[in-house]
């Protein structure tokens, strides 16, 4: 008989770092990892939010901590990660978008998006992986990409570029870190209903267009992303690396 059991999805005794954990997808992921048994550190610049979220997780019986961290600050990132207990799981979730027509994108927009979505995420992953390698421990790095890491979309040239970049270096990291038993994968959500995206969906034209492309006929919910992250963080996916898990209701199948 197989050794598989549902407990393979549990994360007991695992330590996780989630960036951009103050709200939205990052917050939901942090709560999901804690519910699966992990000790979670929530990182964000919005200290009040992560502090409240960590307290909330603790109230529900989970193990959580928080850190006021700007992932754009490379020195601060290295200092924090090198000083903290090792993280077995990293969810590189902090990211941003500035939708604009291609012809109107300014270098300042480009830099804001690439510095956070690509550069910061790359070096947070490097810092976490360096610790794991030094301690001879395996781990799971989950980069929050997007369906826009696989296709293009109007008004999203810079965002698409940044998420395609993340897809590229995730595969390269998977190859280099595989021998150390550190897995690197991406999660590629479609549009997810969060406090940040809620105003977009009040525009009926936009909502209908999105719904026509998500073949399952509903906007994504944060729990859809949580399921994918828990799978990729857990032993259930222990042979999965260099993969992109699309959570897009069929958007990119078209």
């Amino acid at each position, binding site marked *: *008989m197989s050794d598989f059991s549902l407990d*393979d999805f549990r994360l007991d005794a695992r330590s996780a770092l989630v960036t951009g954990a103050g709200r939205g997808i990052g917050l939901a992921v942090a709560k999901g990892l804690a519910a699966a048994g992990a000790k979670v550190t929530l990182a964000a610049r919005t200290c009040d939010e992560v502090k409240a979220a960590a307290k909330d997780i603790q109230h529900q019986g989970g193990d959580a901590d928080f850190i006021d961290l700007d992932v754009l600050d490379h020195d601060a990132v290295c200092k924090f990660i090198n000083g903290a207990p090792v993280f077995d799981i990293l969810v590189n979730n902090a990211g941003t978008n500035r939708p604009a027509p291609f012809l109107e994108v300014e270098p300042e927009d480009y830099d804001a998006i690439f510095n956070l979505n690509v550069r910061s995420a790359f070096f947070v992953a490097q810092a976490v992986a360096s610790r794991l390698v030094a301690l001879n421990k395996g781990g799971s790095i989950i980069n929050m990409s997007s369906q826009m890491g696989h296709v293009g979309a109007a008004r999203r040239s810079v965002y698409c570029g940044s998420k395609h970049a993340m897809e590229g270096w995730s595969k390269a990291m998977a190859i280099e870190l595989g021998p150390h038993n550190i*897995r690197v994968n991406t999660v590629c959500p479609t549009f997810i209903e969060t406090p940040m995206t809620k105003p977009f969906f009040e525009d009926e034209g936009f909502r209908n267009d999105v719904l026509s492309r998500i073949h399952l006929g509903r906007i994504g919910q944060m729990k859809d992303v949580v399921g994918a992250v828990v799978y990729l963080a857990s032993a259930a996916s222990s042979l999965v690396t260099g993969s992109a898990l699309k959570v897009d209701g069929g958007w990119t199948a078209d």
Partner: protein
Amino acid sequence: MLGLFQLEGKNALVTGAARGIGKGIAEGLAAAGAAVTLVDLNQKQSSEAASAIKKSGGNAVGAALDVRDLDAMGAFVEDNAPFDILVNNAGVNRMRDVLDFAPTDYDAIFDINARAAFFLSQHVARKLIDCGSGGSIINISSQMGQVGGARRALYCGSKHAIEGFTKAMAIELGPHKIRVNTICPTFIETELAKQFLDDPDFRADVERRICLGRIGNTDDIAAAAVYLASPASSLVTGAAIKVDGGWTAE
């Protein structure tokens, strides 16, 4: 949290379920709470596999069927309660140099790997739509559905075909809440793979190309199937989950 991955009350059909990956998937789905029907050409082995699941507390039944017999498969689906979960796992491989393949090889591989999976999906989906219920169809593809491999031209072709029709089915069946995805394993330790993996040079080459440095086991695939069958993946359709230790990242 684990409730998201549970399959209580779900009815699953797994083809090629008597041995290897199919057996592992059937056991995994049963461990997650599904009632599993194990279909295989071999009557004795499919009922033995089902009995083993029952002995460990699961809900399983074996059936001897040839997936190439489209009418028989259609009738079987018609006669049973709707399958909320279908795992199209039955498959074959014949390895030859590309110049040596004969039309009989082509037919043997494509009839099972592509044609049988296509029409079983059609039967299961039709019944789900008639009953107004959603479902999850999981097609066992391969890393060879993403890349090429020497002496595997027809196998690669058949698995790429699965990847193609899976995406198209996902688009058409999405409005009916039927999800369609693939799992793409690398080399897995099974009796069937033993013939290759017993060759130390071949094994070393495979281990070198799997960046995580180990050959897969059937539990790796069972876990991916449970994820794709469960509510945890309820927004995932038209996707391919690669369980290849990084093989195709390179």
